[in-house]
């Protein structure tokens, strides 16, 4: 009899302990969620406060009853924000498109074709993966300057095209496609390029999409190279635009307008993330690192 009571007590204590543990876990996780989301909330909030309202708040308020879109108008009229957007779009689309062509061709050669020196070339490619960008950016800067390609799209795009990591990722994926498919195509007199176009690319589309999205994110956020290679506002990308706005934009104090600009340049990526978050997270988990 005494035993059963003991067990019941123990069980209840254990349940309480579990309950407390769970609560703490949820509390902690929610706290981090707030930490992550708060800057986003804050930029949206500030972007819809009027200039005067914002500056009147010595103690910042966490809400507003009087949202305005004037800041967005200011952001797009007083600074060529639309221009920065267009530049970034041109840069992102061209770089990504070129990267895809280069990557697909190289991955196909490594995964499928047999030629002398292939293994050596692949090892060389892999070893280049370890080279930090900081080491080569200096000469690239000099090269582009000497080619008179500063403040041009070509100068922005060319050094960002080749991505060994994506070649590697795609090569692995291509290699997973059964050999027999290639042999079957060969038996039927299919040219290599047609096999690539009609068979390999459609089969590996998920990986290609992942690579594309990762590259788009990388391009949209790139800052260092564009900063080095452009000093003419007409070629600024959004990152440089933001930095420029911060230092010289709306007068240092028009923070709501700055926040409107910040929200505007963040929105495209956040939308992309909401649509493709599964693919993006899978792609990054497979070994991507930022930048």
């Amino acid at each position: 009899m005494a035993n059963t009571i003991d067990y019941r007590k123990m069980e209840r204590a254990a349940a309480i302990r579990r309950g407390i543990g769970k609560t703490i876990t949820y509390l902690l996780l929610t706290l981090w969620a707030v930490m992550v989301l708060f800057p986003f909330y804050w930029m949206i909030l500030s972007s819809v406060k009027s200039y005067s309202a914002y500056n009147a708040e010595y103690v910042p308020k966490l809400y507003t009853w009087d949202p305005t879109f004037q800041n967005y108008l200011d952001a797009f009229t007083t600074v060529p924000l639309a221009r920065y957007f267009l530049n970034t779009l041109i840069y992102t689309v061209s770089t990504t498109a070129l990267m895809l062509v280069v990557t697909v061709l190289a991955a196909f050669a490594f995964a499928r074709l047999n030629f002398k020196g292939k293994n050596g070339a692949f090892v060389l490619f892999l070893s280049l993966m370890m080279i930090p960008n900081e080491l080569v950016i200096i000469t690239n800067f000099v090269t582009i300057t000497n080619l008179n390609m500063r403040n041009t799209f070509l100068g922005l795009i060319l050094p960002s095209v080749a991505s060994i990591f994506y070649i590697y990722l795609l090569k692995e994926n291509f290699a997973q496609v059964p050999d027999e498919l290639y042999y079957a195509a060969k038996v039927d007199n299919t040219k290599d390029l047609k096999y690539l176009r009609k068979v390999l690319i459609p089969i590996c589309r998920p990986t290609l999409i992942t690579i594309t999205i990762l590259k788009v994110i990388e391009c949209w956020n790139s800052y260092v190279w564009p900063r080095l290679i452009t000093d003419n506002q007409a070629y600024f990308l959004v990152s440089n635009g933001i930095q420029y706005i911060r230092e010289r934009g709306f007068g240092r104090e028009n923070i709501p307008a700055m926040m409107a600009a910040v929200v505007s340049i963040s929105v495209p990526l956040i939308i992309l993330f909401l649509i493709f978050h599964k693919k993006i997270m899978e792609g990054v988990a497979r070994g991507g690192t930022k930048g």
Partner: protein
Amino acid sequence: MRILFDELTKVFTDKKRGKKESVVAVDHFSFEIPDGQLIGLLGPSGCGKSTALHLISGLHTPTSGRIYFGDEDMTDVPVEKREVGVVFQNYALYPHLSVLENIMFPLDNLEGNKRISPNEMRSRARAAAKLVQIDELESRRPKELSGGQQQRVAIARALVKQPRVLLLDEPLSNLDARLRLQTREEIRRIQKGTGVTTIFVTHDQEEAMSISDQIVVMQSGRVQQIGKPQWVYDFPANLFVAKFLGTPPINVFRGSIRGGRLFIGKDDVFAAPGLSDQEVWVGIRPEGFILDEQGPLRCTFQSLEMMGRDISVMAGHVALEGERLQALLEAGSGIPAGAAQVNFSLKPDKVHVFSRDTQVRLDWQKGGMGK
């Protein structure tokens, strides 16, 4: 299309830690396949039969020797120009294309004056689909099909471009037992219908025996025997062929020829005139045993299995290679319960004698049997 192999040899070299290792996959392969036949390449795994098949397709290039289609030397013609149809073991269907698109794929690659309009491609693909009876599935994707259906799509795709030769690599190995039976009849029907010279590779002797016009038995890259299935079964060229063909397998004994008589162990089995005194291997097919109390072959009885039509007797013998011999007897043959010994007499045409050294089958003048 007649196909001729002339001393075809394929050596694979593999560099491992600087050391070159060579494997002879196909060794001086010479034979001729008459036009319009269905040929089974048969052998245990690793015997080089798939390599031989892909020497024909062109996916492998021979180390030496020539290969002819008709009178045309194909040895140096690359795979894409050989106009062969191949059905791969895993079918190799394009997963992102529908059945009809899969079948049309080879037609889209035709060049020059062979090029045909999209409409004709479609109608030819449909005709091929109809031939293999999958015309109702044409808009499905491969993964929506059963194994047997995928197999038919693969055959249709191989046939649609009207190949000179049809090659099938283990065409039935991915199917379950029931489908296998049905599909092999199907392959036979399609082959006879189109008349295309067809070569298929299999490790399953029953499969090869049942549908081939001729079988080619291979081991370690060498052709052991070529011929009509029943003939190969009845007259195996050597011990390997005898052991490889037939289920249950042939029973092998150590024997000897002494004074024109065949001995198994100490048992004087029967006269074998025309053979000189020597040590031999003796192979006896399971159906070659006759229960006979006076029979010369004296075995220790082990067990008995009723198998419906037949009775299978397991027994031991001192001269036997392996654990036990298996004899298939007609149901109703009486074995006394609890017997410790069974005696057999033998059907001479089910008994094969092989040289102990060369393992080649030795012929004697049959008919001179008797005690």
